[in-house]
């Protein structure tokens, strides 16, 4: 327990930096970074602790987003219940899918997820368009009521709410990474057979890490839905899958803060560089190549290497 919480200050420090940053950068940018970070954390945990690469993370984002949106559009006005709906549906969906695909070889797992993402996009775009609104999506911004004094349509209120959610997720992820479950996950990546020798079920371990990862993606989807008061199929587009994986690698796979750094760079690049050159992805692509060639743990790895060198000197 002591080992698990000894680095508690790290998430608190990051949250403080994000909170102070609102005086220097637009709140809308920071809010998007927070939500995108949670989404990247899902891919980061799956890759770093489940050893599984997925090109279908937008599917799980979409499940959370549409569950929240459908609740808020058809049934109620409480965004917190909408968020809860996103988490519940996301968990059930991840459990159902995970039981089937978790035993697949890692390359098949990646491609199956990509294929399911395409199917999910089609279901939302076409087959269930009478419920999901098809390509037009669902608008419900004006339907959300304030809860406990929090007006979710107010940018500042939502920013504070998103910060609290990010803090909880950071603490939870740090706890899991430093717990015995995190160690078992790493051991599974290292040698599945040996993990079985010791009496662990590799299937259960991988399934749990997949569910945790998918629920994080669904949570990000729910937050997107509440923040914009709108969902549409493009959030599940296949190009988003590549973006998520690239951001994960850029920040640093298996690191706690890599997703936040990666998300800040990607959202920043979209906002700033797209004003200078149209194809901002070129910058991200070049940066990704440089980072991958320089360090195998992304930008966090580069910083860690630099700190280690300074200590040696």
């Amino acid at each position, binding site marked *: 327990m002591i080992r698990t919480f000894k680095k508690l200050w790290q998430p608190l420090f990051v949250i403080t930096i994000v909170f102070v940053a609102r005086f220097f950068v637009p709140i809308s940018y920071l809010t998007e970074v927070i939500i995108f970070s949670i989404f990247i954390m899902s891919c980061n945990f799956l890759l770093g602790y489940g050893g599984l690469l997925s090109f279908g993370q937008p599917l799980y984002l979409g499940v959370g987003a549409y569950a929240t949106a459908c609740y808020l559009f058809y049934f109620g006005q409480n965004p917190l219940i909408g968020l809860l709906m996103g988490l519940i549906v996301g968990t059930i969906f991840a459990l159902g899918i995970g039981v089937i695909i978790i035993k697949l070889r890692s390359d098949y797992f990646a491609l199956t997820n990509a294929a399911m993402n395409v199917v999910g996009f089609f279901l939302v775009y076409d087959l269930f368009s009478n419920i999901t609104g098809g390509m037009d999506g669902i608008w419900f911004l004006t339907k959300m009521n304030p809860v406990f004094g929090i007006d979710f349509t107010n940018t500042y209120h939502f920013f504070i709410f998103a910060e609290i959610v990010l803090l909880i997720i950071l603490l939870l992820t740090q706890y899991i990474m430093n717990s015995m479950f995190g*160690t*078992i996950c*790493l*051991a599974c990546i*290292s040698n599945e057979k040996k993990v*079985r020798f*010791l*009496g662990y*079920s*590799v299937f259960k371990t991988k399934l749990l890490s997949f569910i945790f990862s998918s629920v994080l993606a669904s949570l990000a989807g729910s937050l997107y839905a509440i923040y914009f008061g709108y969902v549409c199929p493009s959030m599940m587009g296949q190009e988003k899958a590549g973006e998520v994986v690239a951001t994960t690698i850029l920040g640093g796979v298996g690191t706690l803060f890599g997703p936040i750094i990666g998300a800040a760079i990607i959202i920043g690049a979209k906002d700033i560089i797209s004003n200078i050159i149209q194809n901002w992805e070129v910058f991200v692509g070049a940066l990704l190549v440089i980072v991958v060639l320089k360090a195998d743990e992304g930008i966090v790895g580069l910083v860690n290497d630099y700190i280690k060198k300074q200590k040696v000197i």
Partner: protein
Amino acid sequence: MDKILEIKNVNGAYGEAKVLFDISLSFETNKTSIIVGKNGAGKTTLFRIITGFMKPTSGSVNFFNNEKSQNLVGLPPYKIANLGIRYVAQDKAVFSDLTVKENLELAAYPTKDYNWDFIFEYFPKLQVLLNKKGGYLSGGERQMLIIGRALLGKPSVLLLDEPMEGLAPLIIEGFIEVISKIKKELTLIIVEQNIPVISKLADRVFLIKEGKIIADVGNKDDIKKATFEKYL
């Protein structure tokens, strides 16, 4: 003497290639049995079947625990490990990114037996290496860690697949001494080709050739006199 493990009419194959032919053996509680045979005779396949990593084409593997018998065939490997049957494979692989302590913690967690002081009595060197990552250990140190890890949770059966392979003679002497102490407390089944090891540790020797048991030597004097070299 009470049986703890009984292999009955087991046949094993890799696809079309049959490897084990109607094997029947039994292992006694707290005795050390050594399986001797050439490479490719089917020794490791037999271990893979006992530990659930391979399903036999026919036959049963019965485990006697608290006077109850349980057929292990069809059980997943992790359930067999949790029944108290631990396997130390030939490859000496440890979790290289985890420290010695984390490797031990990982092994202790399923049984919640965190009392690993007795392991340091067998292998004092491990105590010094506690914070060293598994990837930086020598072959002998890895083997100490793997055997130590397998002993956590007090298993009733320990399977060792060529534990002395690739180790220096001096280290082998140390391991023989440790295994001589361990063998009093649990059932050991060892696959071994090192003749001095066989004569020093074995209470019973099974000779396996081309997937068939060709001899069962159960007398200590006979084991010492026997010339196992011709079967290797």
